[in-house]
């Protein structure tokens, strides 16, 4: 009962914020008289979303699949890779800064390679999403692991726990707050990565993903459809963010201060 109420509040708050934002936007556009081809009104955007609902629904499904898979891949690679890098000082000193490159290679530059290796369509979009989202997870994991209380580490050193056990029973649980932060950041980036991947990887099947819808609408100067598609990207990112936050809260509420006051 109390839980349901709190959960409702958790969902309501950002919704109210969104509604407020849209209200201000509508008023601002009307007052400042901004041309609709530059910044359409929210009502116009909503209308265009409704009339294109079938296209947008398919597109959202398709992009959400890519973003979700990319996010999962990034989480896996980031947490495991980060753990290995954090554990081996030589790797930490060499690979950690090197990994920054990963996130900096503009996808468009390696797109021809990606396309040749992975083909057009979903796999490329997933790879792009994962590449863009992996670094925050990696960095948070590494920094989280290196901040584990040395006192607790000594408890495990004493028991001569093998690295794998220590990781499972100490490092990972102690780093969960940091990793959740990394995953929160990655949630949004995974969606961007999927979109950018779709720019280069394209249509795949018959269903055009959101990235292609955005490009097409832009080419046709349908600004309101561009914004509609972008809003759906945001929704996908939102949902991923919400799932990560809830998961983090479930894992942390019993012991970590950051999760103590969420459900008051």
């Amino acid at each position, binding site marked *: 009962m109390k839980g349901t109420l709190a959960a409702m509040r958790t969902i309501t708050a950002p919704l109210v914020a969104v509604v407020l934002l849209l209200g201000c936007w509508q008023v601002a556009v009307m007052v400042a008289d901004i*041309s*609709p*081809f*530059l910044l359409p009104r929210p009502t116009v955007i909503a209308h265009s979303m409704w009339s294109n609902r079938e296209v947008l629904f398919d597109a959202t499904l398709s992009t959400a699949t890519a973003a979700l898979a990319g996010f999962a891949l990034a989480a896996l690679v980031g947490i495991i890779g980060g753990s290995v890098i954090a554990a081996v000082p030589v790797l930490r000193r060499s690979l950690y800064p090197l990994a920054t490159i990963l996130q900096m290679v503009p996808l*468009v*530059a390696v*797109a*021809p390679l990606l*396309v*040749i290796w992975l083909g*057009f369509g979903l796999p490329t979009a997933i790879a792009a999403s994962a590449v863009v989202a992996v670094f925050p997870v990696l960095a948070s994991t590494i920094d989280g692991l290196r901040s584990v209380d040395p006192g607790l580490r000594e408890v495990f050193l004493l028991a001569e726990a093998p690295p794998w056990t220590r990781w499972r029973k100490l490092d990972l649980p102690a780093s969960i707050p940091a990793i959740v932060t990394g995953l929160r950041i990655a949630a949004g980036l995974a969606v961007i990565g999927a979109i950018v991947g*779709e*720019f*280069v*990887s*394209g*249509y795949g099947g018959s269903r*055009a993903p959101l990235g*292609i819808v955005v*490009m*097409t*609408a*832009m*080419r*046709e*100067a*349908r*600004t309101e459809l561009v914004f509609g598609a972008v809003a759906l990207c945001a929704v996908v990112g939102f949902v991923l963010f919400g799932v990560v936050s809830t998961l983090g809260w479930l894992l942390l509420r019993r012991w970590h201060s950051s999760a103590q006051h969420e459900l008051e």
Partner: protein
Amino acid sequence: DAPKQPQSVPIQVQLNWVPEPEFGGIYAALQEGLYAQAGLAVEVIKGGGQVPCAQLVASGQVPFAVVSGEEVLTLRARGGPIVAVFATFQKNPTGFLLHAENPINSLEALWRSDSTIGIDPGLPFVKMLNERYPGGAVKLVPYSGALATFLASPNYAQQCFITSEPVECQLRGIQSKVLSLADVFNPYAAVVATNETFLKEHPDRVDAFVRATAEGWRRYLDAPERYNPAIAALNPSMTLEAMNIAARLERPFIVPEQGERAIGTMSAARWQSLCEQLTATKVIESCGSIDAAFVAAPPAVP
């Protein structure tokens, strides 16, 4: 001679790509001081890949911008007060780039094959080709902007601009051919546009700019080698050799049937047919008044 003014008016023109022979006339006019003689201090703003030129000029951010013909009509349909004043390419300079050894030799054969073609999503001619040549297994993928995919795969085709990709192939010794789109879809290209307000308030400046640009093109097309070094200096990523080849290639697309004197001029019929194609493929619902969409170029100076 253009009237000499004591002070020249600063005017910007926004390009939709980096300095190239595609904009040769503007640079020639600059180099020859034609704009200055017309009392205009023109500043050329180089573009990137995704600079929203049409929106910029429609919202009055810049007085002039280089855009495509279909952009003028689409943005007008969305309420953007953009007006075409000068059409560089009289014939559509876009087409499909194929390897020379590719057996396909017509647009129809291409569209009815099972080739993979790189095309920017949302280009209007895709719908036209689909309607005209139904039943193909052709696979459309986004055009990444990179020529590398083409060079690496013999059966791949991609959209191209006559002054750009074919030249690169030639320079690299790769045999290629171009299937022109002009028969199917022939809008004006590299159109210089302004917005309605500017046109109403400063018809004289628009006129002066267009005349100087047209004269610039005439001089450029006569001796592109004279002007290309200056362009190459502004765009170090393209070689002078490539520019010289491109200038030769683009000439037939720029000079209209009426001859050099009519460079840049536009006709209502051409705009009308573009309008019909765009409405037929439902890119836009209607075009409004075609006459308001462009200003026919002033009579050329002998």
